[in-house]
């Protein structure tokens, strides 16, 4: 059985073909107990397909999926009883009333009848459903459907939640609410969620997995993906002396010799009498100290220096576009 050290979710060389379409190539990753992991990738990358294999809906063409150490292919029922799943676009029974539907889900999940009403009410309260309990699901707005889908995934109080785009189609207020709910849930549950909203991942996730074209391209903390010195840019502004063109060439030469600087380019100045440069940082050495020392010893008046880490967007675009181009070549 599963112990604490065991991964809550594991994809081991997981892949899926639809006829000749390779939806997921081979993807391997783990989600440890208690982690909240964001699953990113461009449209058609294979996020939903991977989740469908993890939850036992689709049979993988390659590899295997494990939930709490249990092979989903060998024992789907035990694996499925450990997780709550919100499929993409929250498919629900439109002809049922919200409360009836949640009772139905609880029945199938084998939730004991004793004290169940109270538990369901509690879940509905958390998901903001109390005022629509008696409504037909078919009449609900997209946001409320999404909430019912989330509530349905919670009826048996699972340790693991797999959520496919839980905030898609929600208005900004609802996004904040659901994000807060996911954060709360993440305190005592393991969560794997896919989304296209990058700030959401930064706000809620301990770790980010990015796939593109069915392949894993990144698996790291949000900090590492954004704050890694490689790729960061440093903008500096210096005072221009007489003969600006000459001065620019001199400063550029000086700057490019600083350890940790990969490249220097002209950048926007702060008005007349100043010169702007953009430096690309190379590796693990932070070049800012070197820049300062160089400026002092070469009589360069440094009036501004700003370090800009890469945004998650930048990383996302670099990783996912690069992958496409590589595949095409």
């Amino acid at each position, binding site marked *: 059985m599963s112990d604490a050290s065991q991964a809550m979710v594991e994809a081991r060389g997981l892949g899926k073909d639809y006829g000749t379409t390779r939806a997921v190539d081979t993807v391997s990753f783990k989600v440890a107990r208690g982690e909240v992991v964001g699953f990113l990738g461009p449209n058609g990358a294979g996020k939903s397909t991977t989740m*469908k294999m993890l939850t036992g*809906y689709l*049979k993988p063409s390659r590899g295997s999926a494990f939930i709490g150490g249990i092979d989903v292919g060998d024992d789907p029922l035990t694996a499925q*009883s450990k997780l709550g799943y919100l499929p993409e676009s929250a498919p629900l*029974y439109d002809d049922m009333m919200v409360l009836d539907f949640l009772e139905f889900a609880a029945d199938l999940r084998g939730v004991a009848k004793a004290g169940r009403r109270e538990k369901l009410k509690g879940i509905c309260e958390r998901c903001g459903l109390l005022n629509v309990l008696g409504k037909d699901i078919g009449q609900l707005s997209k946001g409320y459907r999404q909430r019912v889908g989330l509530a*349905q995934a919670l009826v048996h109080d699972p340790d693991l939640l797999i959520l496919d785009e839980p905030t898609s189609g929600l208005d900004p207020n609802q996004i904040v609410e659901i994000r807060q709910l996911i954060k709360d849930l993440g305190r005592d549950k393991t969560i794997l969620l896919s989304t296209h909203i990058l700030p959401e991942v930064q706000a809620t996730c301990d770790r980010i997995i990015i796939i593109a074209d069915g392949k894993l391209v990144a698996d790291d903390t949000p900090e590492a993906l954004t704050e890694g010195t490689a790729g960061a840019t440093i903008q500096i502004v210096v005072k221009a002396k007489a003969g600006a063109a000459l001065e620019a060439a001199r400063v550029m030469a000086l700057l490019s010799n600083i350890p940790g600087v990969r490249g220097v380019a002209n950048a926007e100045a702060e008005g007349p009498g100043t010169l702007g440069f953009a430096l690309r940082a190379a590796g693990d050495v932070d070049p800012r100290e070197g820049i300062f020392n160089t400026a002092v010893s070469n009589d360069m008046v440094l009036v501004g220096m700003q370090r800009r880490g890469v945004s998650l967007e930048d990383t996302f675009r670099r990783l996912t576009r690069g992958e496409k181009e590589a595949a095409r070549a």
Partner: protein
Amino acid sequence: MRKVAVIARRELASYFNAPVAYIVIVTFLLVAGWMFFSSLFLMGRADLRPLFAPSPFSPSMLLVIIAPAVTMRLIAEERKSGTIELISTMPIRKWEIIAGKFTAAFALLAVSILSTLVYAISVSAIGDLDWGPVAAGYFGMLLFAGALTAIGLLCSTITQNQIVAFIAGFIVCAVLYFVYWLQFFVPPGLASFVEFISVSSHLESMARGVIDTRNIFYYLSLIGGALFVAMRVLSRQRS
């Protein structure tokens, strides 16, 4: 078994929440009533055989249309709306889904069939009614309805389009029903084969009040076979 009941209960609720269930029951009662009273007055016999015997415009022929109509939605709709993904990722076995859906549709048809007992009771009030053949007839009718339900459910698993499911179910049921009359036009060897495969011939003998294990075996294997294939189709889903 408990989960079979959960699935069945949900399906029954949706039959009875929409007018579907009432339309089915009332239509069946009307057709059965017309068949029954016309033969009662024509022949003046307290006999329920016309209620069960296969013939054009009989209640059993009506079931050839009704059974695919009540089953067409069962899986096709889940595929179309995507709820199949929801239910397939709950801890429930494929056979439990199929058995639950079958139970609900069969229960609706069984209620329709058994509601014609009011005719039997009214006849027994007027004259002498031999309840033995009547019981055999009802038993045969229920098995017959079970077979059509299983075929209809199977057709609902192969598509996400309810209309396609209905048409496929109707064609299969109609062929199995009407092939019966072909036996009078084909050579004897073929005739016995035709008689064996037709759902009508097995109903015919039970309508006469004869319960033969071969008839029971025929219907049960048809039900079991269709449900088994339906379960397999559901298991090897790809989308």
